[in-house]
């Protein structure tokens, strides 16, 4: 109907639903590529959380004890607390730049699903912070005296866990868009919600280090991630809309 009417007006305007409109997936890919390209142009934001993670995990052997049997016991907690704090550090950048230069406003007015756009942005954020953290976690494990056999378990649990952390963070970052120096508020909002991830993640890591089956906590972590994927983009979009008003 709309197309027909636009056609009648004898104009060259593109209206919704014509072949000129890219598909949801094309738009999501465009967003992903954009965010990755942007991130690599300001690499310091990328490196910061990773350096932080490496720093925390190397401080423990220095502060507690260099003895590997003891380090191995605290390794799950160290890896997970460090992963949680590092991913928190990266959150502030998730939507802030786009909000400041008016890009989010343009997204909200694009006629495309804001939920989808924010989901794509969150995915890019995970690729840029969560995935590198997950790849670094086994290395940190080795530094803390963890045996090689446990490393796949650490990799798997941190990979799945950071997905949820990114999703929780997206809601928090969207809610605190209007707040100046949102860092403190953001951590207050997201840390309590991240506790289940910390518990199940650390448990899976602990079991992996002991050489026991860690499927159960890993499945629970995955369930949290699925729940997050379902709910978080919707909540983030609603929060962004409120902040734009």
């Amino acid at each position: 109907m709309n197309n027909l009417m636009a056609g009648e007006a004898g104009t060259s305007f593109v209206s919704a639903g014509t072949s000129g409109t890219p598909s949801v997936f094309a738009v999501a890919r465009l967003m992903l590529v954009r965010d990755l390209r942007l991130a690599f142009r300001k690499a310091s934001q990328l490196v910061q959380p990773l350096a932080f993670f490496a720093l925390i995990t190397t401080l423990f052997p220095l502060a507690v004890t260099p003895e590997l049997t003891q380090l191995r016991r605290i390794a799950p907690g160290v890896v997970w607390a460090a992963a949680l704090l590092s991913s928190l550090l990266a959150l502030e950048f998730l939507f802030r730049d786009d909000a400041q230069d008016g890009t989010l406003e343009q997204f909200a007015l694009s006629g495309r699903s804001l939920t989808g756009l924010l989901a794509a942005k969150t995915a890019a954020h995970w690729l840029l912070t969560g995935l590198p953290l997950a790849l670094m976690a086994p290395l940190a494990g080795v530094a803390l005296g963890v045996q090689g056999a446990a490393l796949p378990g650490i990799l798997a649990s941190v990979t799945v866990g950071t997905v949820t952390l990114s999703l929780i963070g997206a809601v928090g970052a969207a809610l605190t868009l209007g707040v100046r120096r949102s860092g403190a508020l953001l951590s207050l909002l997201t840390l309590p919600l991240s506790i289940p991830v910390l518990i199940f993640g650390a448990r899976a890591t602990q079991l992996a280090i002991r050489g026991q089956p860690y499927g159960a906590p890993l499945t629970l972590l995955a369930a949290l991630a699925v729940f997050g994927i379902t709910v978080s983009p919707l909540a983030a979009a609603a929060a962004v809309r409120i902040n734009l008003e």
Partner: protein
Amino acid sequence: MSDFTLKGENVHLWRGERHVLHGVHFSVTGGQCLQLTGPNGAGKTSLLRTVCGLAYPEEGHIFWRGEDVRVDLPAFHAQLAYLGHEPPLKMELTARENLHYWVGVRRRLTGRELDGAIERVGAERWADRPVRTLSAGQKRRVALAGLTLMSVPLWLLDEPTTNLDAEGQRLVGRLIDEHLGQGGLAMAAVHHELIISSQGLRRLELRLE
């Protein structure tokens, strides 16, 4: 010939304790440009943001083609382009990349279309420089290129001539003229009279109360 109409009826907007818009009425049809004037703080930007659905009016309605825009906001958004105070550009990307991602979310773009728009706003020489290195007026020109690329019937412009030199101000006028000639409509908040030759210029003055 064009069935594009934008109408506002009795629009009231409050910002906290401040009553910003006091029952604003307006009506624009295809081929017309509504020029919003008024002192700072009179609510020009607020009116534009209300029209495009970013702000919720306490009372009153906006109608696009006779239908309340709240009924299907995404469909309405797909037909409008809003340009705020600041050009929505990424400092780290080049002008060309910015246009590619900004407009690409809405519609498929060919390289030739991009080149055409860049040429039209006189940006050929610096289209591949990071936006960070561009002047405020150059950024504004890039934003104007984005506006034309969206090819939507409704333009909502907040101070479109800010930071532009005399030539740039005439460019804005030309672009609006062409847009109106195609049956499009525009609403622009301005401090200086727009330089447009079209017969379709309408005025709305907002007052401080």
